[in-house]
């Protein structure tokens, strides 16, 4: 019996020698190249030394080489609360070569305990039941892979490892360790301007601000806004009724400039203490609300000013408008 990897074009190895009076024999070819088609032929001689024709068969050996261990796993704190962003370069199907075939997997496991993270046996025990199992296919060696861990405990350090398993179940060794903390909730808000000047107005004037002022949720989590206004050195504030050295300022979230009739002191009046924006029909609500605003979303805010009925000064009065982002 002889074997070949090119259908006996050039390479022939006779690995079972002639033997007398054989009617049946079983033999095992060993040390074959993995994932390689091998041809086998068998023939016989009679007592006159005449040779039979060959019986030829072929088969392909299976993949016996595991992917290499991933060595560049990184973990970065994510954008949103409870997130860590992972990245790594894919290994090959066989070591660092060959495309990972359909049926291949990345297995990712984490721990928050340093004592576990530094114990090899812990990771060995986690491999087959890793928390995250990502099916993959047609991934070439070196391809940059990304995965976002979500739902983690905010501000907690996570230790991460990864394995690769090829389509035949050959496991890579354990990757390098990557460590970082899960993103915290950040409440942040931005007004796109620092000033708005109503200009010169007579007493007893009612006017709506004339330019768009945009509020942006610059945090990484939903926020509900609360609003307040300060008094000025000369004037106090009332939610709706101006008076002697008393102005009224009202605010509303609306995508376009509203008319004065939309405002009411009860719903839109600003005070010197924070008031939370409500849902539809509630505080500071026009056709937008300041409640549960997603990250990066914008709101337009408009002011209605009622100047005092009488003033003790004609100097410019400055009031500070504050808007605070709160957890919904």
């Amino acid at each position: 019996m002889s074997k070949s990897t090119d259908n006996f074009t050039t390479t022939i190895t006779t690995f079972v020698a002639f033997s007398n009076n054989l009617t049946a024999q079983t033999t095992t070819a060993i040390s074959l190249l993995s994932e390689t088609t091998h041809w086998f032929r068998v023939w016989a001689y009679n007592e006159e030394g005449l040779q039979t024709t060959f019986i030829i068969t072929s088969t392909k050996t299976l993949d016996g080489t595991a992917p290499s261990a991933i060595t560049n796993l990184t973990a970065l704190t994510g954008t949103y609360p409870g997130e860590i962003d992972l990245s790594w370069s894919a290994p090959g199907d066989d070591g660092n070569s060959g495309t990972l075939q359909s049926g291949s997997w990345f297995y990712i496991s984490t721990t928050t305990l340093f004592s576990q993270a530094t114990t090899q046996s812990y990771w060995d025990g986690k491999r087959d039941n890793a928390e995250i199992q990502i099916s993959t296919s047609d991934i070439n060696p070196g391809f940059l892979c990304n995965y976002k861990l979500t739902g983690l405990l905010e501000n907690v350090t996570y230790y991460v490892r990864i394995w690769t398993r090829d389509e035949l179940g050959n496991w890579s060794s354990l990757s390098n360790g990557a460590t970082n903390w899960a993103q915290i909730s950040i409440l942040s808000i931005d007004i796109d301007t620092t000033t708005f000047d109503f200009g010169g107005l007579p007493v007893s004037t009612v006017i709506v601000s004339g330019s768009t002022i945009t509020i942006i949720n610059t945090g990484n989590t939903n926020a509900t806004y609360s609003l307040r206004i300060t008094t000025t050195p000369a004037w106090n504030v009332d939610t709706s009724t101006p008076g002697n050295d008393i102005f009224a300022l009202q605010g509303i979230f609306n995508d376009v400039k509203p008319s004065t009739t939309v405002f009411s002191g009860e719903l839109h009046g600003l005070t010197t203490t924070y008031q939370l924006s409500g849902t539809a029909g509630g505080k500071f609500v026009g056709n937008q609300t300041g409640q549960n605003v997603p990250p990066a979303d914008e709101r337009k805010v408009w002011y209605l000013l009622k100047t005092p009925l009488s003033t003790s000064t004609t100097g410019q009065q400055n009031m500070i408008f504050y808007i605070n982002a709160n957890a919904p």
Partner: protein
Amino acid sequence: MKKLILFLGVVVMFSGMLYADNPDSMTISVTITGATKSVDISSTTWTLSAATGTTNNSGEIKVTNNSGGFTETYQVKSSSTNWEAGTALADVGANRRVLASVIKTYGVGSPTFADDDVVGLSYVTCSATQFSDDATNNGANVAAGGDRGMWLQLKTPTSVASTTENITLYVYVP
């Protein structure tokens, strides 16, 4: 290595929180225009004949803030041609008179005069007690269009070199 990793984590966390801007604020400004300081006294003269050493009370004189927008706090002073000005209700003497003024809610009746109602030769600012017997409505913070009632009391000198005197009372908006 453990300590190093933890340390790096802390540094990143704080740098992450530094960019949080909460709350944010903006300044809203307005300037009142069209208001001019002005005050009107309804009577320009109070003429009386009185003996020396007597106390004489005027009727109510309306003082109106006709500024068109200003909230005004008045200042008051007097001047004399012949007599000196006393500085307390009892500070009368030869050729020395006392003029007191109270500004209060208009139309509610005559006041009670006190030493701090005595009008001197220099401007003094009205307050809840100065030229006042009314802590709420007096010559301070009078809203535009607001009326006040001004009452005067003249204590004549105990003796005089000149029997005729012209005293001018000034109400001023600084």
